[in-house]
Structures are given as structure tokens and as C-alpha cells.
């Protein structure tokens, strides 16, 4: 019972029945994917909240993390093709190591990006467009450096965790990968939220986001705040890359960041740019909507869903679902 739209032959469908069938699968998968989006979105949202800058190169920061993860696996002796049977503690240990390496790598690149590319522009009071161009240039530079180091093709997938169904919800199987991902995303989000809302450094971030000049007058070290903001965004992106590699079937691709980055940015905008809760809500929501759209319209339209959502949100509610706000104190 597939209803087809007129004039469109078979290139787009409207498969309500398929959606109904796949609903819980899509939900589970969507939430997992959404977790990844949320973690990357946090990076965009933090930087935008503090600097009013769309850090286009954040997607490349993420990909650096992915490659770092891959390199760690490789260095630890794992290879593509076979999934080793490891006792749980060892497995967790290896994952942690890879995770930390990825986070450090991404964090370092993020801070480097800020110091080398953005800070000189801030010092010169450059207009918005200039920051955008630099971000694009940085994006290219990082991407191509990765390509040159790792070669033109994607790196094959090294899998440490064998996806295994853990339990079922309404017929949809939830694998261990999904579980780890989702739980980790929520936990990391809580940690970030705690950091921004309850620590001194976090207060500094919120102060600079609200009013940089007054914050400086009140003794907040603006440069330090900016570095920390980029660092936190990078750390989160690094963590996201670890989970991302766990989830995707193919391996690390040097230009795989762009599409993912745009989607994560969409998630940030959807939830409310500059709003931490918004990043989480937006990320999860986007993951769900994407998957539902895939079932509804056909697999090849999955990517378009994200863009259509982006355009629609920006046109009708640019402040997002939860509204812009990094500066507002949490109630």
C-alpha cells in the first residue's frame, strides 16, 4: 500500500505504511544518530554563543578526532576486517584510550584554529564576512592535510565493538553500540551543562556570551574564556567521533565531516543556537526526523531532510525551538 505522488513516477514516494512498520527502528536509530549530532552541535552552539561566529571548520575538528581514533586503534594493534573478542574491561579500556586521544586531538586542533586563524581577525576588528572566509579556508586546509597524510581513499573501518542486540523495544532491537552512544551523549551533555552553568569558568563563558565588554570589566579573562570554549567544543567533537566510528559501516573519510557538520549545525539552529539544551533537543530531533523521512520518502532523500528542516526553521523560527540563549542563567 504505497501511495505515490502524481507526476513524480518512482523517484519519490510517500510510504506511510513503510514508516509505520519501521517506526521503532527509526526511533532507536534516530536517537543514536541524534546523540552524535548533539555532541557536535554543542561545539557550534558554544562558539556561536560566545563569539557570534559560525565555526565552519568545526566539522573538520570532528574528522580529526575520527582519524585520531582510527590511528589509535591501529597503533594498539587492531586491524580492519576482524572484530576481536575482548573481555569487557579490556574493551572499555581500549575505547577509553581511543576516546581520550580523539578528544585531545580534536581539542588541540580546535584551540589551534582559534589562535592561528580567528584571534588575529578579532584583533583587527574584522567584519563578519572575513571570519566566514577564514573559516572556509581553515576547513579546506585541515581537510586537505588529512587527505595528504592518510591518502585519498577512506580508511577502512576498524571495529572494536561487535554490534549485538541488547534488548528490544516494541520490536526494534537496541544494540550495545546504540546504547553506549545514547547514554554517553546524554552524560557528556550533562557534564557540559554542569560546566557551563555551575562552574566559575562556565560563568565566565556565559558572561562573555552576554556582554563581552562588561565581562572584561568585571575581571573575566576574555581570551581564556574563548580558548576554553573552543577547547570544550573540540573535546565534545572528539568524543562524538569515537561514537561515530562505532556506528557507521564505513571507515574514516577525510571529507566526511562536511555533511555531518552541516547537519549538526542544523541541529544547533533547530534547538536554538547558543542554547545548550537546544543542542541536545535539536540533535535528537533531527536524528529522528531524518530517519522518519528516510522511511517516508525513500532512502536517497535522507540528506535533503536535514537541509529542508534547516531552511524551514530559519525562515519561520530563526531563534529555534528553545530560543537563543547562552547568556541566560539557568532557572
Amino acid at each position, binding site marked *: 500500500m504505497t501511495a505515490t505522488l502524481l507526476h513524480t*513516477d*518512482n*523517484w*519519490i514516494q510517500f510510504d506511510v505504511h513503510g514508516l509505520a512498520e519501521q517506526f521503532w527502528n527509526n526511533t532507536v536509530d534516530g536517537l543514536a544518530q541524534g546523540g552524535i549530532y548533539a555532541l557536535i552541535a554543542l561545539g557550534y552552539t558554544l562558539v556561536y554563543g560566545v563569539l*557570534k561566529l*559560525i565555526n565552519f571548520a568545526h566539522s573538520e575538528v570532528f574528522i580529526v578526532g575520527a582519524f585520531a581514533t582510527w590511528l589509535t586503534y591501529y597503533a594498539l594493534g587492531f586491524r580492519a576486517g576482524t572484530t576481536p573478542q575482548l573481555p569487557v574491561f579490556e574493551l572499555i579500556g581500549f575505547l577509553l584510550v581511543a576516546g581520550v586521544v580523539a578528544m585531545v586531538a580534536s581539542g588541540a586542533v580546535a584551540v589551534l584554529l582559534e589562535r*592561528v*586563524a580567528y584571534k*588575529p*581577525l578579532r584583533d*583587527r*576588528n*574584522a*567584519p*563578519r*564576512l*572575513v*571570519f*566566514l*572566509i*577564514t573559516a*572556509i*579556508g*581553515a*576547513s*579546506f*586546509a*585541515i*581537510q*586537505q*592535510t588529512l587527505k*595528504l597524510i592518510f591518502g585519498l581513499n577512506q580508511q577502512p573501518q576498524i571495529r572494536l565493538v561487535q554490534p549485538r542486540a541488547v534488548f528490544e523495544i516494541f520490536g526494534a532491537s537496541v544494540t550495545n553500540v546504540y546504547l553506549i552512544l545514547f547514554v554517553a551523549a546524554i552524560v557528556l551533555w550533562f557534564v557540559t551543562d554542569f560546566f557551563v552553568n555551575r562552574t566559575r569558568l562556565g560563568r565566565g563563558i556565559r558572561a562573555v556570551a552576554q556582554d563581552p565588554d562588561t565581562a572584561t570589566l568585571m575581571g573575566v579573562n576574555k581570551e581564556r574564556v574563548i580558548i576554553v570554549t573552543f577547547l570544550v567544543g573540540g573535546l565534545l567533537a572528539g568524543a562524538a567521533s569515537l561514537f561515530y566510528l562505532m556506528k557507521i559501516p564505513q571507515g574514516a573519510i577525510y571529507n566526511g565531516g*562536511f555533511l555531518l557538520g*552541516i547537519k549538526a*549545525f*542544523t541541529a544547533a*539552529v533547530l534547538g536554538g543556537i547558543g542554547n545548550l539544551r537546544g543542542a541536545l533537543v535539536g540533535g535528537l530531533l533531527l536524528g529522528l526526523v531524518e530517519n522518519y523521512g528516510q522511511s517516508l520518502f525513500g532512502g*536517497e*532523500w535522507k*540528506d*535533503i531532510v536535514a*537541509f*529542508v528542516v*534547516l*531552511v524551514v526553521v*530559519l*525562515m519561520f523560527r*530563526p531563534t529555534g525551538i528553545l530560543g537563543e540563549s547562552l547568556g541566560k542563567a539557568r532557572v
Partner: protein
Amino acid sequence: MSLRERWNALSRPAQWAVLLPVVALVYFLPVLDPPVIATTGTDFPTAMFDVARYALVAVGLNVVVGQAGLLDLGYVGFFAVGAYVTALFTSPSSSLHKLPFLWTLPLAMVVTMIFGVILGTPTLRLRGDYLAIVTLGFGEIIRLLADNVDPLRGQRGFERVGADNAGQPLFTHATQWYWLTVTIIIAVLLLVGNLERSRVGRAWVAIREDEDVAEIMGVPTYKFKIWAFVMGAAIGGLSGALYAGKLGFVNNQSFDVVTSMLFLAAVVLGGAGNKVGVLLGAAVVAYLPMRFVQIAKYNYLIFGLALIILMIFRPQGLLGARQHLLAYGRQAYQRLIGRGDQISGDSALAPEKTGGRS
């Protein structure tokens, strides 16, 4: 810059006397095929055509980004629409009624202008960053549509685009395509120049400088932003149509976001807001990778680094010179202060200087 001042000091006829040989040189370049400039690996006339079509795109994008200050990151979308219009109406692979290639040029412009209106009307109420992201989104949507909408034939694409009923393309030699494009560029430059020296061009610069104040000074900002967008779209579509005709083949592979970024870089590199500067920028962006093929691997890396460095040390781009916004400006300045326009050049992106306090 004394060069700029000396140029402005020349009378109009003198300026033309300098320009004409330069223009003649530009036309004859592919015929001369000079050794140092010639590209290895790519047929030189074809390389020149590529530079020319980039230049045309740069002029169009300059109207949107450089003059009106609207951040458009999805410009490749208009380019794609133009190319596909030509493909749809000239290729045997398409099921639509066939038209002679030259007719598809104005048709492509009209269709892209319609797209420009559709795209611009809801989005031009947004400011700055948001506009940039929405246009990026639209560019990607168009690409994805090209991928997935069957009548557009995805990767298979359209063949023998631009051929007439007998299967003959309009021009057989790349040089002829180059000449056609250069002529079109000159015509477009003249028309855009007319716009610059009118209330339209002034309104655009006012919007770019301070949109709120522009509106309070009586500029219907929304209307003019749409016009900028639509004009830019038309020029982009025109370039796409020419590209389709020359290449003879259109599919979904050449309209990605990287191309949008390259277009933007051409504008920024040359000097956003300076229609001659962006020609230079386009030449750099299109020509250098073809000339220095040995470093082709490092193209985008060099490119990315160059952008970063340029934005720090010379954000106004190579030429960064100022536009003239008055149709009778020269006479007016002459009348008021005894000499024509004598200010040095700074573009929209130049670093801020402190204003003079007496």
C-alpha cells in the same frame, strides 16, 4: 595608491585609450598561446574559457556579496540551474522541446531569476550569518535534487548539450567559446557599472554599510536586496548555460558546495565590491591550479591556507578599490573642489581605521 589616483586623474578618453589594448590582448590570449602562461595538461583555450566563466560568475556573485553585502554560500545553485536549463532544452537525452542554444541563454537567465525570487523572498529578511547558512542549505538542496530527481538524470546526465538539430555544437573550438564569454563579460560589466552609478548601486552599498540606517534614509531595503539577489542569480545562470554549451555534458557532479566556496573565494580574493578586482580573483582561483598542475595535489590546501593568511593581512583582497556611485560624480567633484574623485581605495572588507576626530 598612487596608481589608482593616477588612473582617476586621466580623462575618460585617456582611460579608454589604455583599456582598449588591454581588452584586445585579453581576446587574443588563447591565439597567442604565450609560453610562460600556457597551461600544461589542459588545452590553453579551454583553460582560458574556464577562467572566463569563473570571471563571469565572480561578477555576478560580486553584486550579491560585494555590493549588497549579502552572504550567499549557495551560489553554485544558480549556476547549476542555468546549466540544467540549457541541457533540458538542447540535449537529445531530454524529452523537452528543443531550442537553439543561443535562445537558452536568456531562458536560463529568466529561470534563474525566478529561482532567485523564490529563494530570496523568504530568506532576505534574515541577517548575516543566518542568510549565509540558508543559502548554503539551498545550494545543497539543489544539488541533492539534481542527484535524486529522475528527470534530471543524476549521474548519467545530459549529453550533446548545446547541439542543434543536426547534432552540431555551436562552436567547435574552445577559443570561440572563450570569445563569446569574454564579450558577454564586457557587456555585463558595462551594465553592472550602470547599476553602480545609480540609485540602485548606491542603495546596495548603503544596505551593506548599515541596513537600518539605509531604510531610515528612505531606501526600500527589502526590494533592493531581492533585486541584488535576482541580478546575481541571472548572471550565475548565464555562466552555467555557457558552461553547459561548451562542455556539451551536464550531470550532477560539478555543482557541489566546494564550487560555491571557490566562487566566493574568487570574489573575496579579488576585492569584494570591486567588479574589476573580482575578475582578477577569478583568474587566480581558476587559472593557478591549471597552470601549476604539478602541485595539483596541494591545490586546496594551499588555497585554504592562502585564504586564512589573506584574511589576516589583506582582507580587502588584491585590488580592494572603491566603487564610484555617482553618474555625474566626476563633474560634481570637479565643480565643488576643483578636481575629480581623489580618494584612495578601500573596500568593504578593509580593516577599520579610526574616524578622524578634529
